[in-house]
């Protein structure tokens, strides 16, 4: 089942369009994660726009949270920096709106944790995300089969629920999760936190095939966690429809800012390298 489009919205979502476009160009999609408001609101806005310009097909806008228990040291540090300058859910919505004002095409997926959504009110959050120009939501600690409230609110607004699928997910769970998913399926390459070492890819490749079978190939499968270099990206692109890079991009920004430089050119060069690696 695909999410019903809201009145007047295009029949194909921006996310589906981005994956279709990559496919038609004979390459795999690049999904880029950045923590919103790292290192500050305006630099973050410029970084997101630059990433899209340099070839990121989908942007994941990380919503800073005080207790990111699924994230490794790189993204934890980015969230701390962002929170220190007023980052959070409110700022992430503003940031999405600002990016959308300058780029009408790039799909934006909110990537975050349950509490900021829950406290804001799930329906209110979905409406605000839609109004800000977002396309989907990935909530790390809100399994869609555990509590349908988020999935229903997103469906209501015509937003895609992008779920995580893990190496430990049973076939039953993959089916149940894929049934309510939209946009793409995010396969987590390893049992661990973001930014961990990339494991042997044979198992991931086999699992991605299995996920495709179990979801009848309805949605593209992107693979993330541990993809740090263009070589990693090329290897994963051998079997996935999309490649997600997060911690490594966040580290590029951290290094540039730490050296007192504008991080935009460094990120643009990094994204350009990744995009070239994907063909």
């Amino acid at each position: 089942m695909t999410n019903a489009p809201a009145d007047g919205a295009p029949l194909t979502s921006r996310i589906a369009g981005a994956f279709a476009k990559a496919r038609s160009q004979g390459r795999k999609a690049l999904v880029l994660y950045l923590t919103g408001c790292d290192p500050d609101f305006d630099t973050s806005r410029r970084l997101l726009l630059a990433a899209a310009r340099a070839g990121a097909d989908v942007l994941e806008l990380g919503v800073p949270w005080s207790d990111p228990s699924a994230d490794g040291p790189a993204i934890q540090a980015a969230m701390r920096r962002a929170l220190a300058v007023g980052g959070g859910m409110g700022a992430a919505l503003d940031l999405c709106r600002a990016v959308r004002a300058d780029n009408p095409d790039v799909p934006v997926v909110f990537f975050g944790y349950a509490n900021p959504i829950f406290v804001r009110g799930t329906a209110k959050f979905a409406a605000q995300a839609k109004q800000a120009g977002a396309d989907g939501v990935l909530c790390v600690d809100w399994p869609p089969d555990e509590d349908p409230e988020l999935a229903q609110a997103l469906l209501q607004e015509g937003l895609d629920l992008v779920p995580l699928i893990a190496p430990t997910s049973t076939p039953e769970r993959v089916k149940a999760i894929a049934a309510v998913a939209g946009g793409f399926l995010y396969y987590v390459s390893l049992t661990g936190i973001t930014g961990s070492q990339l494991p042997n890819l044979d198992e991931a490749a086999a699992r991605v095939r299995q996920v495709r079978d179990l979801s009848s190939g309805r949605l593209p499968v992107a693979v993330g966690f541990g993809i740090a270099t263009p070589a990693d990206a090329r290897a994963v692109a051998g079997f996935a429809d999309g490649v997600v890079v997060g911690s490594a991009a966040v580290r590029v920004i951290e290094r540039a800012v730490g050296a007192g430089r504008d991080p935009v050119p460094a990120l643009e060069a990094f994204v350009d390298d990744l995009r070239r690696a994907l063909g």
Partner: protein
Amino acid sequence: MSTVPHAPGRFGPYGGRYVSETLMPALEELTAAWEHFSRDPTFRTELDRLLRDYVGRPTPLTEAARLADHVARVQGRRLRVFLKREDLCHTGSHKLNNCVGQILLAQRLGKKRIIAETGAGQHGVATATVCALFGLPCEIYMGAVDVERQSLNVFRMQLLGARVHSVKDGTATLKDAMNEAMRDWVTNVSTTHYVLGTVAGPHPYPTMVGELQSVIGSEARAQIQSATGRLPDACLACVGGGSNAMGLFRGFLNDSQVRLFGVEAAGEGLHTTHHAATLGKGRPGVLHGTRSYVLCDDDGQIAEAHSVSAGLDYPGVGPEHSYLRDTGRAEYLAATDQEALDACRLLARCEGIIPALESAHAVAALGRVAERLPDGASVIINVSGRGDKDMGTIAKYFGAEVSS
């Protein structure tokens, strides 16, 4: 009124499993294992034997006559006060009740490595203790602030053979230790059992830990009936995550005439931001895998909790407490750092029992509870742990005053 979860793992709207997908299958496996083994006679026999021969159960119910005299003098209310003596459990707190049960379950699941979070260090010590008993490697996550203020417990854990990780992230207290334990678990889930120490976290932990701690309430129920010939009028326990309170309350949930009082940490006062009164001042949210009350701002960022007692210094609370709060079955009060310290000294001098600073919060609320009860009422206070670990903190607060 029934407090049986409405759906599996739910207490009204609270509870559930809000974790990353990687952990969901492990939680399903753990839930199935607990449902099976908690009804298995061989498992129960082994657990009961450990509770008796190793933990030292049953713990006594001690009548506190001089404390009752004090309340009569100050409050003008004549009560019978009983102390449930979890401070007399091996390792010095109720935490071991839960750890022995979870370790037996981990064994049956074939998990060879044990991790846990700890605040005051009592749960860390209890976990390290059972790991020593069963010869399992043990790693404990503890906030750097707590490592500092509970250094004796850190040494105890190390002496027992556990590795203690000092967590410097965030506020460097219990919540951050839990985040780091979750990160370890998500990485090592196939080999590792996470011994969560309280009635919070994702299902099945609130149910499982509550059932393992319910031994407190079932013993207390029988003991007070034998001492007074009837049920108590009130039960009183401190609430951080809420496991000792839930353990006591479970003995009386269906006895509507027994009033249940939980006491949270008011820290420097509920009018300040330095407290840990999640049920008193928080709002429904999601933290550490469960839907429950949390302390957070309007943006959903978790607030820094504060309490003089590391074990209550937590911005979340078990989901069953949230349900009991909303339904009114239990009432939640709060005691400040100063009130807890004074109550600690009061119990020491009235009864020769030095409670943990956590448990001292329950003692501190006795006067306010007495005001709501008739003359002749009987009250059970859960002394969830002993105060030896807090001597450094207590000495610092009272300074030279303690010798006067």
